[in-house]
C-alpha cells in the first residue's frame, strides 16, 4: 500500500496556511484528547486481535460522525517507513503511532483518520488520540472542533471513564481531561535578547511546559517551541485552556517587544545577520536539517520585522515541513542517503525562494 496524499483535500497541511492570529509568531495550535474504549486492554498491553477490533469499532463509529464522514483512513501498519515518516513530519501522526520510535515498534492496527483540521489516531499509547490542528493562535476554535468530535464519538463508543479520576489513560500524566493543548511558537527575539531563559522558567511555574518542534522528546531547533499544559487533572478543560491562552498571549507580547528592542538597539547587526541567513538558503548547495531550521528561523524573523517583504509566511511554513528528510525522499521517489538528503534539501529551498524572489531586497 502506498500513501495517496491526494485523498486529503489540503494534503493535511491546511494548518500551515498562516491564516490564523499572530501567524508570524505562532505557527499552529493543536489540542488533543486521549480516550480509551471500554472493554479492551490499553494499546501496549492489548493483543493484535484486540487492537484490530478496536480499529473496527472506531471505524464504524467514525462513519456516522458528521465531521469525519469525508475523512480518509491510513493504516500505518500497511505503509512503508518513508510514508509513515512523511505523515509524522506533517504533524498528522505521532512518532509512536508511526512506529518510528525505537521504544515503540509499529503496532498492528495502528491507523489514523484525517479530515479537514481534525484527526483520530487509533492504537496510539491510548486507543484514541483525537486532535484538532489550526493555523496561528486559535485555542478556542480548536477546542470547539475537538469537543464536538469527542462528544459525537463518545456517544457511539463507550469510553473508559471513572467518576473520580475522569477519562482513563495508559499514562497517569494524561488522566482526567486527557487534554493537551499546545501552541507552536517561534521565539527568535527572546532567544537573541537572551530573555528566553526567564520566560521558559516562568512557564514551568504556571503549570505549563515546553518541547521542540515535534513534541515530547524532541529538541528545540530553529527557535521553535511547543508550549503546552503539563497537568490534565484537577482543572476543567476551560480552565486548562484559559491558562494556556493567557500565558501564551503574554509570551507573544514579550516576543513582539523583544523584536522591537532588537531593531531599535541593534538594527544593522540584525539586518545583516538575517540577510546572511537568506543568502545561505538562497545559494547553498547542501543543507543539514539543523542548518535549514536555523536559517529559516532567521528569514522568518526578517519577514516578521518586514525587512523582507516579498516572502510569505505560508512559504516559510511550507519550507519548514517540506524540506524534511521523508518529504525530500518522497518527492525524489526513492530513499536518500544523508548527503543526498542535504543536497536535495538545498535544491528544494533554493527553488522555493527563487519562486518568490521577485522584489526581495
Amino acid at each position, binding site marked *: 500500500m502506498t500513501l495517496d496524499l491526494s485523498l486529503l483535500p489540503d494534503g493535511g497541511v491546511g494548518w500551515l496556511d498562516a491564516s490564523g492570529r499572530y501567524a508570524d509568531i505562532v505557527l499552529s495550535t493543536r489540542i488533543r484528547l486521549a480516550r480509551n474504549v*471500554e472493554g*479492551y486492554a490499553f494499546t501496549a498491553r492489548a493483543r493484535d486481535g484486540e487492537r484490530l477490533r478496536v480499529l473496527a469499532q472506531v471505524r464504524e463509529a467514525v462513519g456516522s460522525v458528521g465531521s469525519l464522514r469525508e475523512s480518509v483512513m491510513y493504516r500505518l501498519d500497511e505503509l512503508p517507513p518513508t510514508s509513515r515518516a512523511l505523515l509524522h513530519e506533517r504533524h498528522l501522526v505521532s512518532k509512536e503511532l508511526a512506529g518510528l520510535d525505537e521504544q515503540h515498534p509499529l503496532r498492528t492496527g495502528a491507523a489514523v483518520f484525517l479530515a479537514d483540521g481534525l484527526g483520530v489516531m487509533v492504537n496510539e499509547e491510548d486507543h484514541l488520540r483525537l486532535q484538532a490542528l489550526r493555523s496561528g493562535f486559535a485555542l478556542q476554535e480548536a477546542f470547539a472542533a475537538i469537543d464536538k468530535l469527542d462528544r459525537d464519538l*463518545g456517544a457511539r463508543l463507550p469510553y473508559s471513564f*471513572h467518576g473520580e479520576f475522569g*477519562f482513563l489513560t495508559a*499514562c*497517569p500524566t494524561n488522566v482526567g481531561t486527557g487534554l493537551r493543548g499546545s501552541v507552536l511558537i517561534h521565539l527568535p527575539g527572546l532567544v537573541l535578547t537572551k530573555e528566553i531563559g526567564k520566560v521558559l522558567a516562568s512557564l514551568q511555574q504556571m503549570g505549563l511546559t515546553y518541547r521542540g518542534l515535534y513534541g515530547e522528546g524532541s529538541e528545540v531547533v530553529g527557535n521553535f517551541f511547543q508550549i503546552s499544559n503539563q*497537568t490534565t*487533572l484537577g482543572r476543567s478543560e476551560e480552565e486548562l485552556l484559559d491558562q494556556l491562552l493567557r500565558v501564551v498571549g503574554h509570551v507573544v507580547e514579550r516576543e513582539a517587544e523583544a523584536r522591537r528592542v532588537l531593531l531599535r538597539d541593534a538594527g544593522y547587526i540584525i539586518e545583516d545577520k538575517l540577510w546572511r541567513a537568506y543568502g545561505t538558503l538562497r545559494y547553498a548547495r547542501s543543507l543539514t536539517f539543523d542548518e535549514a531550521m536555523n536559517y529559516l528561523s532567521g528569514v522568518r524573523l526578517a519577514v516578521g520585522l518586514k525587512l523582507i517583504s516579498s516572502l510569505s509566511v505560508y512559504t516559510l511554513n511550507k519550507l519548514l515541513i517540506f524540506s524534511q528528510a521523508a518529504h525530500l525522499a518522497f518527492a525524489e521517489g526513492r530513499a536518500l542517503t544523508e548527503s543526498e538528503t542535504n543536497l536535495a534539501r538545498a535544491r528544494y529551498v533554493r527553488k522555493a525562494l527563487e519562486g518568490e524572489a521577485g522584489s526581495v531586497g
Partner: protein
Amino acid sequence: MADFRATGRWGCARCYTNFEPGIRELLRRVQGGHRHVGRPYQPQMSEELERASVLGELKDRLRRAIESEQFELAADLRDRIRVME
C-alpha cells in the same frame, strides 16, 4: 503493579479501580490532585445494546404475563416483541 513500575503505563482501565488508593497518591504527586473536575461522561448505550435490553425486558414481562394467565397483556407484549425483532 510491577508492570507499571517498569513501564510507567497501566495495562487497562481496571488497574485504576484495582489499585485505587495507590493511584490516588500517585496522581496527587504527578498531577497535583486526583479529582476530575472536567467534563462528565455518561457512556451512552449503543442502539443495539438498548434494543437488546428493551427486548429482554419485554420477554421477561411476557413470561410473567403467561404465568399469571394475563393473556390479553401477553398477546400485546408478543406483538411488541414481534415488531422489534
